[in-house]
């Protein structure tokens, strides 16, 4: 139960706060209480895996898993969440009205995110996953008056919703393969070989990971989402939301086939380089951090991919990945918060306008410098350890072209990180610049980044303890087995390739920082080339869109207009073919003896009238020929042993035609001379028909059953009455209602005239 509480409590409280946002409430206190409870609860009540019934018919359960991996993520979510809640208080002080809503969204997001990491049932995972997408949409679009916020939120939800669908497909495929819904059981099944990998599963699962964790080619949404309030960026786009993809990659590692793992490593590497490149180009501080996040996420995916491929279970790679994850979440979160402080004070995030801002707020500057040093990996910081172990890992791999490429890319990405990080700090400490600073920095804003930095300090003091407490259990969970050797950390490994790589990073990075202007110009050249490529893409997209619209238009209009004749022709051919197939045409000798001469005449009349109807152009001619068809058909009924029906049909037909002619009176030039022909026609036909109907005819159709049952079952002597009222009572009742409705409508329609008269008066 504690797990369920952990996930549900913030979600419920958050949603309630969003709903009641218009009322005044101590939002900060509530949020802090909830986060405090989340952080403290596991200390009091130990968490454990749990499972509850949900949809037994489908085998869905509300099952949660508590192991090293989920605990590590939960720690990040709750810990950084608490810090962010505090920071939000300082950040939002100018706008207390919207504070409650923002807190509500953040709390709800905490709940959803905890759901993602604790879920063991795939459907629970999916639901929480989608919830995080939806809530992040609300958070990014928080300043909904701003166009960039709307556009960014829109792009984010489109991309992540796509990923959600992909995840659903992956879940479906995995379920078909294994027949269960528990992720732990999937891992077991795929690991033991009782379930088989398929390309669909690979691709769908990768799409889910790549969209959420902003891997190429889906990384564009993350910089766009920087329109969100800074605490949201610090929380969602550095620490939690974007790590959900990494989490799934770690949790469902067994579900990926080998080839896909190679693909993940490749894409991760490319993303790492591309993100660093993007960050160097940026001048907006937050967008720079977003690009750098993309880059680091690429590194994480690469590490997990290497772990999945490794022969020895990949423990080293997993350990580095988990370590890097925690390090990045803390450092990036702190950086975002510091950018928020600068933004608040100087009212801009553009690096070009911020020259020398740290000289006016030195305390912030010092903290920022320390964090950045941690981030770019200067020696004796957690960043150094993380980068160093990455290089060591690559060095330990079998030497091949791919490994060298991997190493080169890792160096390149690190150089990029070094360049933008150091350049940023140097610029902000720089001389000159006319940037004004307003107000003082609030405690609520500077304490949170310090708390996050503390991670680096703690780790630096007791690295082995932290590793065995936090990192190792997570690695156990990923590698799904325990091991004795814990990861060993040290600052010095001797003169190895890793050392040279590190030195290369620093040297190249320094050159890069010095030659920043030239670097920018060179990059701009590359950008122009890329633009040209993009123009081609835009052209393709436009073509596709226009042809789709064209097709849709044609579809919508096919049945209208005279082209419908073609449809008719197709239909005739189909029916004709079927009839010819069924009816043996060769046996068709129409002998006069079978059908009387009068019947033949009637048939000829029907055919003539029908053809006349089809070809006639004049309105009245058409109506008359239609009337003639009806009358002749009713005549034919007499030969088919249904004189009563013939009379009914005659009455219906006559009334209909009369009614129609009455309406046609409204046309402008009623050709009166021809109209007089119709009554004559009707009169003649009715006379003939009545005469024929009155000729005594032998009884041919005897409904024995009806006749026999008429009196005993229904106590009625009149067979027709009995049929209508008793044997077909239901249908007759319905028919009466139909006619009543029709009558109603006629009455109501004719009210138009009365209304119009009233209007005229």
């Amino acid at each position, binding site marked *: 139960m504690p797990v369920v509480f952990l996930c549900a409590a913030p979600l419920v409280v958050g949603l309630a706060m969003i709903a009641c946002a218009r009322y005044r409430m101590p939002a900060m206190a509530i949020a802090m209480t909830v986060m405090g409870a989340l952080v403290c609860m596991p200390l009091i009540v130990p968490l454990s895996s749990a499972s509850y019934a949900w*949809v037994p018919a489908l085998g869905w359960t509300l099952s949660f898993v508590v192991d090293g991996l989920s605990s590590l993520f939960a720690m990040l979510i709750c810990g950084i969440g608490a810090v962010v809640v505090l920071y939000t208080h300082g950040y939002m002080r100018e706008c207390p009205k919207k504070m409650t809503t923002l807190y509500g969204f953040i709390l709800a997001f905490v709940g959803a995110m905890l759901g993602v990491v604790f879920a063991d049932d795939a459907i629970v995972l999916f639901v929480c996953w989608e919830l995080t997408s939806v809530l992040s949409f609300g958070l990014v679009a928080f300043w909904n008056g701003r166009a960039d916020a709307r556009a960014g939120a829109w792009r984010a939800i489109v991309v992540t919703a796509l990923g959600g669908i992909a995840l659903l497909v992956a879940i479906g495929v995995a379920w078909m393969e294994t027949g269960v819904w528990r992720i732990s059981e999937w891992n077991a099944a795929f690991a033991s070989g009782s379930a088989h990998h398929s390309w669909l599963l690979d691709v769908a699962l990768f799409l889910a990971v790549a969209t959420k964790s902003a891997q190429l080619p889906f990384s564009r949404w993350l910089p766009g989402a920087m329109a969100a309030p800074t605490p949201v960026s610090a929380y969602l786009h550095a620490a939690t939301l974007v790590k959900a993809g990494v989490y799934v990659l770690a949790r469902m590692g067994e579900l990926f086939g080998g080839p896909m793992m190679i693909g993940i490593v490749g894409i991760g590497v490319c993303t790492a380089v591309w993100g660093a490149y993007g960050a160097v180009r940026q001048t907006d501080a937050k967008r720079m951090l977003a690009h750098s996040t993309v880059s680091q996420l690429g590194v994480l995916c690469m590490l997990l991919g290497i772990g999945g491929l490794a022969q020895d279970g990949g423990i080293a790679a997993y350990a580095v990945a988990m370590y890097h994850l925690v390090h990045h979440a803390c450092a990036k979160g702190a950086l975002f918060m510091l950018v928020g402080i600068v933004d608040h004070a100087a009212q801009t995030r553009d690096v070009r306008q911020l020259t020398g801002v740290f000289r006016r707020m030195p305390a912030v500057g010092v903290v920022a410098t320390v964090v950045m040093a941690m981030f770019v990996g200067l020696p004796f910081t957690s960043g150094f350890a993380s980068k160093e172990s990455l290089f060591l890992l690559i060095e330990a791999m079998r030497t091949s072209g791919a490994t060298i490429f991997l190493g080169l890319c890792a160096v390149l990405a690190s150089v990029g990180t070094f360049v933008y990080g150091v350049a940023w700090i140097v610029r902000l400490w720089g001389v000159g610049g006319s940037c004004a600073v307003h107000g003082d920095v609030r405690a609520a804003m500077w304490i949170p980044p310090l708390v996050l930095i503390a991670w680096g300090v703690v780790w630096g003091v007791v690295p082995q303890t932290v590793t065995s407490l936090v990192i190792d259990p997570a690695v156990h969970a990923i590698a799904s087995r325990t091991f004795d050797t814990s990861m060993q950390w040290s600052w010095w490994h001797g003169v190895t390739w890793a050392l040279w790589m590190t030195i290369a990073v620093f040297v190249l990075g320094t050159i890069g920082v010095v030659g920043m202007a030239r670097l920018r110009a060179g990059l701009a050249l590359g950008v122009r080339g890329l633009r040209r490529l993009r123009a081609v893409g835009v052209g393709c997209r436009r073509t596709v869109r226009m042809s789709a619209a064209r097709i849709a238009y044609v*579809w919508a209009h096919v049945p209208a207009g005279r082209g419908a004749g073609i449809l008719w022709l197709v239909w005739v051919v189909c029916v004709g073919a079927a009839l010819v197939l069924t009816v043996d045409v060769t046996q068709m000798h129409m002998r006069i003896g079978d059908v009387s001469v009068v019947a033949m005449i009637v048939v000829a009349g029907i055919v003539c009238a029908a053809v006349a109807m089809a070809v006639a152009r004049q309105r009245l001619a058409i109506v008359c020929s239609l009337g003639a068809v009806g009358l002749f058909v009713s005549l034919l009924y007499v030969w088919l042993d249904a004189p009563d029906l013939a009379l009914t049909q005659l009455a219906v037909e006559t009334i209909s035609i009369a009614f129609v002619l009455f309406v046609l009176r409204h046309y402008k030039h009623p050709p009166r001379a021809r109209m007089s022909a119709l009554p004559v026609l009707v009169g003649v036909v009715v006379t003939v028909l009545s005469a024929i109907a009155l000729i005594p005819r032998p009884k041919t159709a005897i409904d024995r059953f009806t006749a026999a049952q008429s009196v005993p079952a229904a106590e009625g002597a009149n067979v027709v009455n009995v049929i209508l009222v008793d044997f077909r009572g239901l249908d007759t009742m*319905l028919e009466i209602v*139909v006619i*009543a*409705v029709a009558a109603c409508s006629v009455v109501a329609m004719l009210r*138009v005239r009365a209304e119009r008269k009233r209007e005229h008066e």
Partner: protein
Amino acid sequence: MTTITLRLSDLVIMAPECILLLGVVVLTLADLWMKSSRTSIGIGALVVLCGALAAAVVQLVQETDATVLFGAYEADAFSSLCKIVLLLAACGVLGIAIGTPNETHAVGEMYTLYIPALMGAMLLVSSREWMTTYVALELLTISTIVLIGMRRAAIGKEAAMKLIVLGGVSSAFLLYGISFLYGCTGTTYYEVMASRLDMGQDASLITIAFVMIVASIAVKIALVPFHAWALDVGAGAVVPVAAFLSVVSKLAAIILLWRVCVDVLFPHAADVVVDVLFVLVCVSLVVAHVLALRQVTLLRLFAVSGIAHAALLLVPLIASGTRPDVDAWTIWLYYAVAYVLMNVGAFAAISLTHTTGTQPHVHQFAGLVYRAPWTAVAIVCIVLSLAGLPVSAGFFGKLFILLDALSQREGTAGIVLAALIVVGTVISFAYYFRIVRQMFWRPEGPVPPSSVRTRWFAQTVLWGSALGSVALGCAPGWLMELLAQLIAHTVVS
């Protein structure tokens, strides 16, 4: 027990329909003689529907399983459930209708005419005989036509005219198909007909009759090559009538198709019929979503998106291939309930924000969050359900159908269906979220006057469906088990 003539005891079996019939007579007379107000007639109609609902529930609880008139009419658990769904939908429609400004020539008919239309729909569910089916279908169609044509604006009459012609043509096709089946068997009862049909002797005749019947019902459902009318007619009707068309009429036609397929068509030409339906459903799934992207008038948008939902409702039928099992029926019923909830809710939202005298347009939601935040919350719930996002009834409905398609239909067909459903869902986000975007993001300008706050019936409907959607999304297992338990007996027997 089957009787050959209509007896008084049979009326008890047909209690829901009989209550409706009595109700409509009483209400019409009251409307004529008592000069009562429009709203009181509307509430009267609501009471009648509730009476019928109670009767249907009682039948369901008592596990009534009886036939009337040689088995032309059958009341079993499944038909009772369908009737309850239809009745609930109609209650929602009436709730939307009560309190709308009168845009029609009608006075009380605007409420009373829903009842015969609903009666037709309910008889379609229970009918096991072609004549009854035909007359019930016509009762539904003609009543709907009159409801549409009553609109004072000329487009209403134009839409009615289109529906008359199209309804007539599709009935003609249906009857032509039936006439061949009658010619082959000499009966119009489903069961007898199914036992007498002989594919060996009249294969091509039977096949073409089947295809004609399927096509004509597809016209009623508005599956894709036969969909053009649905847009025009939907746009020409007033909002509650458009809701009725899109929910009750469509659902009734789908139930009819299920019935006919299971009872008559599948035992003889399952492969042909399933192939035809497969093509129709696939094309509908694609085209409906693409067409919907282009719509900005709300009634058109929902007419088109209704087509996509209808196609989804046919997936369990074609996935099963032959005789659908309990799961397929249950999944179908679940999605039908979800469909009713979300579409009735959507139309309630349209009606609430609608300015009289204009065509409902996406812009009418502009800035709703600032005008009526709670209503906006309810609408968001409904849109989530429509788009199939968790946690909502629509999500689970879609998911069940997707899984059913994948698990039932082996090979390419299942995967194609599943892929189309997924792609369609993705496309649908674009047009459903246009509504949400309007609500949140448009700058506050001069807002059109609307009666959001004053119409309690429509508000109740909106909230009922929003909460219902969310509740079903939270506890789908509860309803699934209930449904499975209720219909297990019927399907097995």
